[in-house]
């Protein structure tokens, strides 16, 4: 079965290279660019709100609709944990991440009766180039795993037949940074 991956950047490519599934699946990597941190909310322009929040959120909505229209059984949306933790100087991006994550729950509620599962995977901010030295710490303890954490395995599982009873959930895959 094919896995359709939407979204740009390094993480989307990692998903294209690594995720496989025994179901028809869609993986939506939110188009969030942490290189665009703002120096202060006072400096945030309306054009930046459109660029950092509105357009990528509309892309997420379109992608999840397309996944439904192409009869995907598994839909996984990948976001940074910044939506849950908040991020100083990243307010629009945090809003985008959390909007996408909660859209997953709405979709899971609507489409559950059709056998479609919709879940989120929240990953370390660095996957989206978010600088936690700027946004603020997401943990008060060192993470429990030493090596870089790859979300490929978790996403692959959520796309699998075996995960058919899991929907509307967020799995945080960051080695224990955000609890």
């Amino acid at each position: 079965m094919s896995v359709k991956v939407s979204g740009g950047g390094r993480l989307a490519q990692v998903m294209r290279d690594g995720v496989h599934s025994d179901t028809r699946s869609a993986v939506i990597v939110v188009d969030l660019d942490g290189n665009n941190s703002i120096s202060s909310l006072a400096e945030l322009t309306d054009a930046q709100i459109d660029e950092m929040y509105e357009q990528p959120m509309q892309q997420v909505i379109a992608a999840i609709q397309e996944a439904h229209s192409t009869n995907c059984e598994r839909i996984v949306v990948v976001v940074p944990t910044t939506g849950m933790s908040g991020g100083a100087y990243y307010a629009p991006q945090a809003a985008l991440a959390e909007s996408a994550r909660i859209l997953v729950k709405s979709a899971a509620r609507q489409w559950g009766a059709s056998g479609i599962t919709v879940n989120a995977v929240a990953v370390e901010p660095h996957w989206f180039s978010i600088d936690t030295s700027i946004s603020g710490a997401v943990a008060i303890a060192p993470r429990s795993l030493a090596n870089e954490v790859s979300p490929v395995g978790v996403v692959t599982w959520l796309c699998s037949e075996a995960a058919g009873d899991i929907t509307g959930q967020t799995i945080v895959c960051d080695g224990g940074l955000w609890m």
Partner: protein
Amino acid sequence: MNARRLENRVAIVTGAGQGVGEGIARRLAQEGATVVVAARRAETGEPVVESIRSAGGQAVCIVTDVSVSESVDACVAKTVQQFGRLDMMVHNAFMGGIPHKLEKAQIDKHWTPMSRTGVWASLFCARAAMPHLIASSARPKGEGGGRLILITSPSGVEGSANIPLYSPAKAAQRAIAKSLAREWGEFGITVNCIGPVAGSPALLTAFDRNPALQQAIEARTPLGRVGDITDDIGSVALFLASDDSSFVTGQTIICDGGSFLGL
């Protein structure tokens, strides 16, 4: 019990022409705040102002379209020009919420009104109020304290089957609150959210049309009723606006009688 906890302070409450915003405006005014009723239409805002004044409070109406940044900027500017300060910005106004199927949802019809009034407007309100909230927090203890309060929803945490795109718009407000709580902590400004379920005009009208809906909501609510816009929801806003909450920031208080317990 502290009497008149918001004496000499100034608040803007958006969407205060009715419902939750009206309740918050009334409650803040009861505690001495001068309240700007920021309503999209004077026809709804002015009666609230008159009611507050009749009860001994201070209020004015400034017609404001929160989906337009210039309108929000003008509201803040007029407020500061008239009253000399702004201590509390409460963003409650919201437009949208039409039930829809997610797979058929249209951006212009189902998403844009909620995104503009929920997400964009939260950023507009925060941006416009920011320098004045910083100034409020710089005042001596007990004489000020910048507060940004965003009105979200339990649906912003748990999603919604009936109005699926409502939830992302409300979720964004929680992320904005957490982000700005981090960003503005150095100034002493607190940023929090309230997730109410209250007897707004829209909900009460729905109850009139469908009494079974009221029974269903009350049955799933441990406290057995929906909230009162002033006494229940307004009082939570009062807490977050007052000095009592000076060490609370980045949080969401779900105020729904215990219906939602998943936070």
